[in-house]
């Protein structure tokens, strides 16, 4: 399955889960429309933006974005499905705390996998024309998100459930905030040193 087909399948799964949710709670149409459309719209914007991308670095980045969309869609679809299974009494309410912890651990593990792979992406621009220090930023973001994912796993496993969700949310916000901040600082700052390698003597 290619990243493109996986992202399409995941978006359809999210759409289907949202339709199911609307059928169970028809009075919450606005909520289900939002859940059904936000990710597909984002997916459509990314596909349009990447239509004319060429080169192996851009292909890797585009596929990475597709896998991110697929991951977000599947996580949302799973969350919706579990919620509806509880609402329709297919799953007993007593299982909800355990399901939440498992979902939290899976989310943390996903962050670790995502962060681990991020530094493997190569800059699509030539060294001299990079708008920011691609390598340093992606290394920083990768480490931050990986450590954040590990902390999320601990946050869901260790504290009482009532505090686990708050702890995990704070950790995720901190990690993603650090990552975004680092990228913005790098874009705003000039490169530290020339990044163009010298010519190789024949």
């Amino acid at each position, binding site marked *: 399955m290619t990243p493109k087909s996986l992202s399409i399948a995941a978006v359809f799964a999210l759409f289907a889960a949202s339709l199911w949710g609307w059928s169970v709670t028809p009075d919450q149409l606005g909520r289900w429309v939002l859940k059904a459309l936000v990710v597909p719209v984002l997916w459509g914007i990314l596909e349009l933006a990447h239509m004319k991308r060429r080169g192996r670095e851009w292909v890797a980045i585009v596929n990475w974005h597709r896998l991110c969309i697929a991951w977000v869609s599947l996580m949302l679809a799973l969350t919706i499905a579990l919620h509806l299974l509880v609402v329709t009494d297919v799953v007993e309410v007593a299982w909800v705390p355990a399901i939440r912890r498992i979902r939290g651990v899976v989310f943390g593990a996903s962050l670790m996998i995502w962060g681990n792979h991020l530094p*493997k992406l190569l800059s699509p621009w030539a060294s001299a024309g990079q708008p920011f220090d691609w390598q340093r930023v992606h290394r920083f973001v*990768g*480490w931050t998100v990986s450590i954040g994912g590990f902390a999320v796993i601990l946050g869901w496993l260790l504290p009482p459930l009532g505090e686990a969700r708050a702890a995990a949310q704070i950790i995720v916000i901190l990690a993603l905030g650090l990552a975004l901040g680092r990228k913005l600082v790098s874009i705003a700052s000039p490169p530290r040193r020339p*990044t163009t*390698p010298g010519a*190789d003597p*024949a």
Partner: protein
Amino acid sequence: MNLVFKALSDPTRRRVLQLLRERPMTAGELAEESHLSKATMSGHFAVLREANLVDADKRGTTITYRLKLSVLEEALLEFVESFGFELTLGHDRRPRPHAVGTEF
């Protein structure tokens, strides 16, 4: 993963990865920094490419290497550097291996 361990087991290849952390470099620059011949370095570059730790971009006669380390691979590199053999530069700037812990 075996390919990664093999790539990280050699101090010259670890030195190449550390140099590439700063910026992309050509094969010639890496050979000059490592004080080894290009033929020797070619073998090291092949091992690093096979382990998917570096990317080689050939334009004309120039090959530019870029780092491609995941977080786990970078952590492994740091671990091996901390507990393995390190290269130091002697007064004549030639690399000499020594075991960690033998300095006074």
